[in-house]
């Protein structure tokens, strides 16, 4: 029983880490543009697909393929921002409507990837083999450690970035008060760009790190987007800490529901959790009231 629980704990951490990364990107973009970026799942999907393409069609080593895939994600995210999001916001389209338009971007990207790579799930080999390690009696696939480790690294870097650098603090300020930031002459466009680059990095990382355990295909994005939003809303759309808390909670709820009750119920439980949080504490568990 203990081993089983430990096993579940490890899975929950892994799942949760992916959701944390997804939520983190969504929160950053929401804070800077007030747009719900429904395209974030496609960015993650493109990360996974790019990794597949680099590894299987070019033969470059993993250590180069990962940054190259992240670069692809950044390019796609910036294109979506320059070509669609910013021009529409500038034309006075409301941020909620722009959010819906990012669903359109996701649809286009998914269709494009489907045309290029087909519909079948594509395998990506693990970063360091598939022999499970035994830790306290629970056997853990190394890829899980990669996911948790990379997420932890990304989180530490994120927090340092927002606390220590001028750009990070400026981005926080932008999220706190748009009008004031605009009036104080913040380089808003540049900060928007940084937000999208940042979101592409964490989103792409989510797609890349999870590709070996769950395969990848043109269709994985929607699920990641939804899970990311659920995590972000539960934790609080307002802060990176909210993304961390929300992502882990959703990961734990899902894995433990599946492990102890029924895997049919895991999605239902997490969505009910979302509705409960929205009713009781709409600003999210970590959100600030007021």
């Amino acid at each position, binding site marked *: 029983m203990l081993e089983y629980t430990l096993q579940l704990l490890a899975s929950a951490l892994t799942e949760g880490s992916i959701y944390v990364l997804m939520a983190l990107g969504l929160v950053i973009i929401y804070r800077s543009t*007030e747009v*719900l970026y429904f395209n974030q799942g496609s960015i993650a999907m493109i990360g996974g697909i790019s990794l597949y393409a680099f590894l299987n069609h070019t033969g470059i080593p993993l250590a180069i393929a990962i940054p190259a895939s992240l670069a692809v994600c950044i390019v796609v995210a910036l294109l979506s921002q320059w070509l*669609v999001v910013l*021009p*529409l916001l500038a*034309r*006075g*389209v*409301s941020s*909620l*409507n722009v*959010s*819906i*338009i990012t*669903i*359109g*971007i*996701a*649809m*286009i990207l*998914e*269709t*494009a990837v*489907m*045309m290029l790579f087909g*519909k079948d799930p594509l395998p990506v080999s693990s970063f360091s083999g598939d022999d499970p390690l035994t830790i306290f009696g629970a056997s853990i696939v190394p890829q899980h450690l990669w996911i948790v480790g990379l997420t932890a690294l990304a989180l530490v870097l994120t927090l340092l970035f927002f606390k220590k650098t001028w750009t990070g603090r400026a981005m926080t300020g932008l999220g706190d008060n748009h009008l004031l930031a605009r009036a104080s002459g913040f380089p808003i466009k540049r900060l928007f760009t940084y937000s999208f680059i940042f979101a592409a990095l964490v989103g792409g990382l989510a797609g890349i790190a999870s590709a070996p355990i769950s395969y990848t295909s043109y269709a994985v994005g*929607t699920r990641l987007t*939804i899970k990311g*939003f*659920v995590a972000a*809303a539960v934790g609080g*759309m307002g802060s990176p800490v909210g993304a961390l808390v929300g992502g882990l909670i959703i990961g734990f709820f899902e894995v433990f529901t599946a492990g102890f009750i029924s895997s*049919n*119920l895991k*999605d*239902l439980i997490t*969505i*009910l959790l*979302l*509705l409960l949080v*929205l*009713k009781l504490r*709409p600003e999210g568990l970590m959100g600030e009231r007021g």
Partner: protein
Amino acid sequence: MGIATLVKRRWPFLVLAAMIFCFPLVIKSSFLMRVGLVWALFAISITGMTLLTGHAGVVSLGHSAFYAFGAYLSALLTVRAGLNPWLAMLIAAGTTSVFAYLFSVPFLKLRRVYLAMGTLGLGEVVFLVAKNTTDVTGGVSGVPGIPYLSLGRFVLSHDWQLFYLFGIFIILFVFLAENVGRTRLGRAYHAIRTNETAASAMGIDVQWELGKVFCFSAVVCAVAGSLLAHFITFISPESFTLDYSFALLIIVIIGGANIWGTLVTSIVLVGFSEVFRVFQDFSMGFYGLLLIVALFVFPDGLAAVLSSKRRGAAAAEASPPAPGRDTATVLAGPRDRGHGEGKILELNGISKRYGGTEALSRVSFSVEYNQIVGIIGPNGAGKTTLLNVINGFLTPWEGSITLAGVDVTRKVPHEMARMGVGRTFQLTNLFKGMTVVENVMVGCHLDGESGILAGGLNVGRARREEAEIGNRAMESLEFLGLTGRAFDIVESLSFGEQRLIELGRALAMRPELLLLDEPAAGLNTAEAERLGVLLRRIREQGVTIVLVEHNMPLVMSVSDMVYVLDFGRGIAFDTADGVSRNEEVIRAYLGQEVRSVS
């Protein structure tokens, strides 16, 4: 109304009805007939969403939930409980309306993004419940054997029969949505979408109105779902995924705030994706591309192109003002409230704090009926905060406010509007994208009572209200000398004119007490003098005015009493003469003013 006017005003309906009538006669392919039926269900579903999202700007990502409610309730009640399909549809619609209202209410108090998230969750939950509670809903294998709808013994089982049935629903709901969209409630939705603050100051109960329209849109989707169940006679969870909600939303956003815009969009989108089924795989990409391109070409949706350039004209011209009627008396006669004597407004020790800073500290003064009371003070003295507290946008931290003898300390803005308090704002707060007369007509919101059904069916009462509102708005504009600009979009007017329209909009509320926040800001000397004349004329009609203003010549010339605020404290309350001689006032404010002028 003659046939010619009817045709002229309602021709889109005739075209729609003709199209629906001809479709089954012309189309012989059973495949295309099915496409027509699929479109018909979309067309029904979007009528409510057009009001909710197009007009009121509320985004729902989960209307598939209500579509599923309608379908599953109808299916289960007929298959498991053996109810008549029509009765089942009615129960499904009723249950959905109650549920939708209860669901939406907590979210409507919050920023709109939370409702978007909540509906996203709801759509997912309903889908998962349908899929996983196999005992009740049949899980993935669905509910088979749902009976057809029938009229007496006549069973509606052929596609063409169903198409005509759906057609009747389309025409009914389109008629409703069209009428609501272009009359009093439609204007209220537009006002809420473009400026919620001003909308509530006009007496619009934002949460209640949005709750109703959310509920209506949900019921319409439930009816569509019920029709779906009795048309394909088998339902399973796949029909109720997120994709359905997204498709509805995309149609409504491309269409914008106009039912014809959304209908045309639905024909294009459903038509393309169904007819080119061979390319089914690419239909999502096509949807996405169309959405982006459409919003680049029409940032406000197709509605902006389709809407008549003279919106509001119909109502305004329906009943021209009676000749010889003095506009000013009609304008200002406070609605069925007798003129009071003594104090209309009393503030008792009002304090308001933000964090550690005290924006207002024990402010007390009173205003008598038919007075003009000026409020002056340096920037940041708390003048606008004071108006916001009186108006109900802010609740005081301590103290009490009495209006005409009634305690109103905790009233919210739309309640204050109902009690006869009109308001203008420091920064112009007009409803963008509306014509001048429509803006003023929003001020008459409380003159009408008809809801979605009465307004939608355009019954006599709603029509009379509409004519009266149009009439009153035109009188307001006449009073301000702006009749010539009545049918121009407000953004096209000069700043000075916009300030006047804001005043006109508040006057159209027929207030007893008018709160004006720097009405002369940005006006040149001549315009400010004209404003002074207007204010006196308004007062002559029995309106009491509280005037926050920096323009000293204006305040000093019109005010009976002047209240001086400094750092949130009242330092003087006296006649204009008395205040201008008061040492403390001169030190805190007037002296500084004189310096800055010289």
